């Protein structure tokens, strides 16, 4: 089925459709929030009306959480070993046995109003990668709406780096294009098309030979990233039926960022590491790579929605009738952890960033609607993907609340009769003990986090390393405040049709101020 030719393929929200389709899509938009709120309100109601059953549910849920943590910890540990192995591997030697000179790496750096130093750091990292620079095309994708200062930065970057790569292009995405949402998706789509017109076609470069890496402007590629990516590209059966997902580290400014920011950022890294070992559950996230041929066939990233990084996977999955997957390359790229001049602003930015990521729930109605329309995808695949994705967003918004806040509800709401049962007395002890055992997994996360830390800058105090280890006690707090609540916030907005726009995470470097 040529699903990418249907009017449903580029739907951004229910209002893009009409009639019955619009109703169905709207219902699917309501689904994630309804499930999450249903769980939370259901637990509260059950605690009031049937506290014994609510207590049974909470005990069962706590045990489920413990088992899930244990199961996921095994995946995390394995991926930790795999990343260390991949970082130690000589990818130059591995690709030397392959024919890869025909490949071109097209790296798109979407740029808004970030400081010159942020862009320079990414450019320097690209320059330092061990890959033939003549086979690299850099596209600095700027925004017209960013103003003159951004144009000056673009020019400065172009002047400094244009002659150091095989191809260099600065694009300026026009502001206010009808049908587009201002954001990364519309910008990099424009940049990709401009690259085709100005780089690929004039140089007769086959689209199938171009690997596009859609980075963030602060994405710092490790030295052998493109060699590793190339090896993976050449070793999959069909590189046009897969996307390539690195592991996002947030190490660029890890020594400057506050503990809160480090913990939240590293938690995202760990989740991606776990998903790397469960590729059937993996969708692209943040910086990712994909063949230009695939992108061109479907018209690049969607321009009318926020979560273009994950949506591109669902676009391709539906376009290829389910014959599309993500290859987890278990090789890192590094980005900025949230950091602002003031702590409160940092916390606010973390919340907003995670709400934007959680807005990825907008892919649920897109995916489910696509599954209803595209019957060429095997039913089992559609069912499995639906369960995995819906459960993922439901877990994000509800599990931390159930574990850390709602566990005591039957005791509070259960009434005199329930409160005289031994179950009511044991419930807090059982939940607390299960939680403590679950939290033992934090030791593993602390060890993994420390193992990937960049060298401590000389200006940092000796005790900074100690704080890096002890910071994990913040997890019960961060998982609720910067996990569940923004998740619920985003799902509630989607449920009520209060659609979010793209919020650019500000990048800030302390050194610049000193």
């Amino acid at each position, binding site marked *: 089925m040529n699903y990418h030719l249907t009017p449903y393929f580029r739907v951004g929200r229910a209002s893009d459709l009409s009639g019955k389709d619009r109703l169905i899509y709207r219902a699917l938009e309501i689904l994630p929030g309804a499930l999450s709120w249903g769980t939370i309100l259901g637990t509260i109601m059950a605690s009031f009306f049937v506290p014994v059953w609510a*207590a*049974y549910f909470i*005990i*069962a849920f706590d*045990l*489920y959480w413990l*088992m*899930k943590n*244990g*199961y996921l910890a*095994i*995946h995390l540990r*394995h*991926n930790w*070993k*795999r990343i260390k*192995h*991949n970082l130690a591997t000589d990818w130059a030697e591995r690709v030397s046995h392959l024919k890869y000179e025909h490949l071109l790496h097209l790296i798109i750096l979407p740029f808004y109003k970030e400081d010159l130093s942020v862009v320079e750091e990414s450019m320097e990292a690209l320059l330092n990668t061990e890959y033939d620079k003549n086979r690299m095309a850099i596209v600095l994708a700027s925004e017209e709406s960013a103003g003159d200062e951004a144009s000056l930065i673009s020019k400065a970057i172009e002047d400094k780096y244009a002659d150091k790569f095989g191809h260099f292009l600065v694009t300026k995405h026009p502001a206010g294009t009808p049908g587009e949402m201002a954001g990364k998706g519309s910008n990099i789509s424009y940049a990709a098309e401009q690259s085709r017109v100005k780089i690929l076609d004039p140089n007769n470069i086959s689209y199938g030979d171009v690997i596009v890496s859609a980075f963030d402007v602060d994405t710092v590629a490790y030295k052998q990233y493109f060699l590793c990516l190339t090896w993976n590209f050449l070793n999959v059966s069909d590189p046009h039926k897969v996307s390539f997902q690195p592991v996002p580290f947030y190490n660029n400014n890890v020594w400057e960022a506050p503990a809160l920011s480090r913990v939240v950022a590293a938690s995202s890294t760990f989740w991606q590491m776990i998903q*790397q*070992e*469960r*590729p059937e559950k993996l969708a692209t996230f943040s910086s990712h790579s994909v063949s230009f041929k695939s992108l061109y066939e479907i018209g690049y990233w969607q321009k009318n929605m926020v979560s273009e990084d994950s949506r591109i996977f669902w676009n391709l999955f539906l376009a290829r009738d389910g014959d599309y997957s993500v290859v*987890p390359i*278990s090789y890192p790229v590094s980005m900025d952890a949230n950091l602002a001049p003031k702590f409160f602003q940092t916390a606010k930015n973390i919340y907003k960033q995670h709400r934007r990521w959680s807005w990825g729930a907008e892919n649920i109605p897109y995916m489910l609607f696509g599954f209803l329309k595209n019957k060429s995808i095997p039913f089992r695949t559609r069912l499995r993907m639906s369960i995995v994705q819906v459960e993922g967003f439901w877990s994000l918004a509800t599990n931390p609340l159930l574990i850390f806040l709602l566990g005591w509800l039957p005791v509070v709401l259960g*009434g*005199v*009769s329930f409160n*005289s*049962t*031994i*179950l*009511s*007395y*044991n*419930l807090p002890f*059982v939940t607390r003990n299960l939680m403590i055992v679950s939290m033992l997994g934090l030791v593993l996360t602390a060890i993994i986090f420390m193992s990937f830390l960049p060298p401590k800058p000389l200006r940092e105090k000796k005790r900074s390393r100690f704080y890096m280890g002890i910071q994990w006690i913040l997890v019960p707090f961060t998982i609720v405040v910067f996990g569940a609540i923004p998740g619920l916030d985003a799902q509630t907005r989607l449920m009520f049709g209060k659609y979010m726009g793209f919020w650019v995470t500000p990048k800030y470097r302390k050194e610049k101020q000193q």
Partner: protein
Amino acid sequence: MKPLSIQKRRIYFTLFALAFIVGIPILILYSTGYRLNSALNIIRTGGLYISVPYSGVSVFVNDQIVRQTSVFQKNVFVQNLRPESYTIRVEKDGLQLWSKELIVSPQTVTEAYSFLLPEAALFIEITEFVEVATTSQATTTPRTTPPPKPQKNALYTDIMNLFVSTSTTATNIKATTTEDIKIKRKLSVENRNGTLVVSWEGDISAIPHYFCVASECKEEIVINTGSPVKTFDFFPGRDDLVIVTISQGVYVFEIDDRSAQNFQLLKLGQGIDFRVKSNDSIYIKDGLKLYSVSL
């Protein structure tokens, strides 16, 4: 290095799923009081919850100490108890003993709220007059400071008035009266010809635990004071204790009659009386002398 193989992941998944399936009934049975006895039979147990007002207090169940309370944990929860009768004793040097015989029911926590008055409470006399120093004024000629002049103590007058006033009730005034009924949080205590009878006037679902044994709740509890009650009131900060004046003196009785009601002496003496003010202070009147009680 290859990703975690699907076979390994399935094995791990199966192991964790099995642990979950096995763990659920074990945890729920444990939480609801089921235990294995020495003969490996499953039995239903219950528990005791004893509230203790102070730290450093020893709590005994059947003469075995189960805990010494601390600043952070004053209340004691004991579980794994077979359903039968238990004697609880709560004691600390310098405080009067509290003990109770309670029946533990299966899968239920039997609650008890102890109280421990000092063996010798401190009585601070409120004098009728207080000495008020006069302030000397600066003058050009030196003068000697006059001796303090006794003045009527306003607190004495206020408290003494409480022993005179009979016009208000416990629900809308802040002091004890000699009225026959007092109500606190829907708990009514009535003085019927010298006998205190307690009843619950609220919703049955919120009835205090000591009215009920298993699912049977009684309508009234009689406080067995031994001799006729002259005056009574709720003990400050508690609605399960009453202070009473009987012929021998002022005592504190608990309402809970699941076994013999505990009572503790506050002040011995004939002809003495007490008042509670603002639900936090106790005053004793002995003749023309007034005392505030420090517990």
